[in-house]
């Protein structure tokens, strides 16, 4: 089982982590990029993202678990900031 992530950052910086239950970084994606990592069924993980920009910026995150799992429904996330801004979000999941 894998989690596949695609990100786009326009005029700003985006950081996406996939963390294990101890907070260890299993996958890190910066700005516009893509990556994937193996997940063990039944284990807990954390999905966490941060944005930072000194100017107006736009970000997009697409993430899915393959094969699909009800513990992680496909994530499509678009966000736009009209001014310099910083933000984050995080949630725990079990694939």
């Amino acid at each position, binding site marked *: 089982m894998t989690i596949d992530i695609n990100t786009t950052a326009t005029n700003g*910086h985006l950081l996406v982590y996939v963390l294990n239950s101890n907070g260890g970084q299993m996958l890190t994606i*910066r700005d516009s990029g893509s990556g994937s990592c193996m997940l063990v069924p039944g284990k807990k993980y*954390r999905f966490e993202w941060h944005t930072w920009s000194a100017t107006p910026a736009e970000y997009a995150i697409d993430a899915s678990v393959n094969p699909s799992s009800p513990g992680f*429904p496909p994530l499509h996330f678009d*966000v736009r900031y009209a001014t310099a801004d910083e*933000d*984050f979000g995080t949630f725990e999941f079990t694939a």
Partner: protein
Amino acid sequence: MKRIALPTFFFVVFANISYSQVDEAKSLTFTPYGNSGVSNIISNLSLSSTFNAGQNAKAELKYTTEKWETYGLTVDQKINEGTKKATPLDLLNGIASGTKIGINFQKMYWDPQLSLNKAQLFDRAADSYSSRTNVDRGTVTRNEILKNGTDEEKRFLKGFATKSPIFFNIQGFLEQTSFSFSTDSISLSEQNVNYMTPSASASVMFPSIAKSSMWVLSYSYAENYAEGSAVSFSSPFGSTSNYVNKDITFGRPVKSYNHKATIEYRKGFLSNDQLSVVINPALSWGSVNNLISLTLPIYFIQAANTDENVRGLQGGFTVGYSGFNTDSKKFTSFSDGFGAQLFITAPFNIFGDL
């Protein structure tokens, strides 16, 4: 080649309380165009010595890696009024006089991962927000909760400082400058020499979006050649009654070094979600005069706004005191060390080119 388009309204007004007393030391330390060697819209302009002579032609090539490392190559050439093109590099003669070639390296360090405790606090706020508003839990953001959350949801995020990136910047430049002078007071024969002078700077920047502020520590080193004052000669033109005037500088240019260390703070104050005032205090030390100087530019004049985009603040008032002599361990008298200027320049950007 990209030419910097200077605003047509660009000018500087000196409302100096004692302008006649502004000496070389002040001119080296008081500049309304920025206090440090940070690569940004202010210090990049370096117009303090060129706005009377003309403009600069500048080309910049940047390459950014996935690890937030930026490599830059810059060519900057002074051009005179009316000049149609710039030729910074001649394949036969090398770098043209008045040309500055630089390399730049910038590294952004940013690891904002939340601690487990903070992540769990966010979970409690976001779970509540998501179930109350039916927003997909995976897309709930910190800003959304702070804007539309209940007091209880916001309370979970109280004191939740985010980690801003830190920027490290190193720049190096080579500049070609030509001089004409004479060492023979009898024949008045002129010599022309070109000097290649290096300069370098390093800086660390700590921006804070939440506080609309930035701390900057910087150090710069520069080599310069200073020429003496020109002497004006008038000599008869042939057998006519006309005279020819010529200005000749005697003696070779003298080489000098300048080390400068600066700590700078930029802080913006908002009114109706727009910058209304920016302060930019800086404390600097320069080796040329061994003076510690304090400057305080205050930007409050709004930039001309020809479209819907806010262009920021472009002018204000600056005061400075220069200062404490680290050699003699004495303070300069207020009348000799104080300077004040009213200025209008390019729109100020707290975060520069970050």
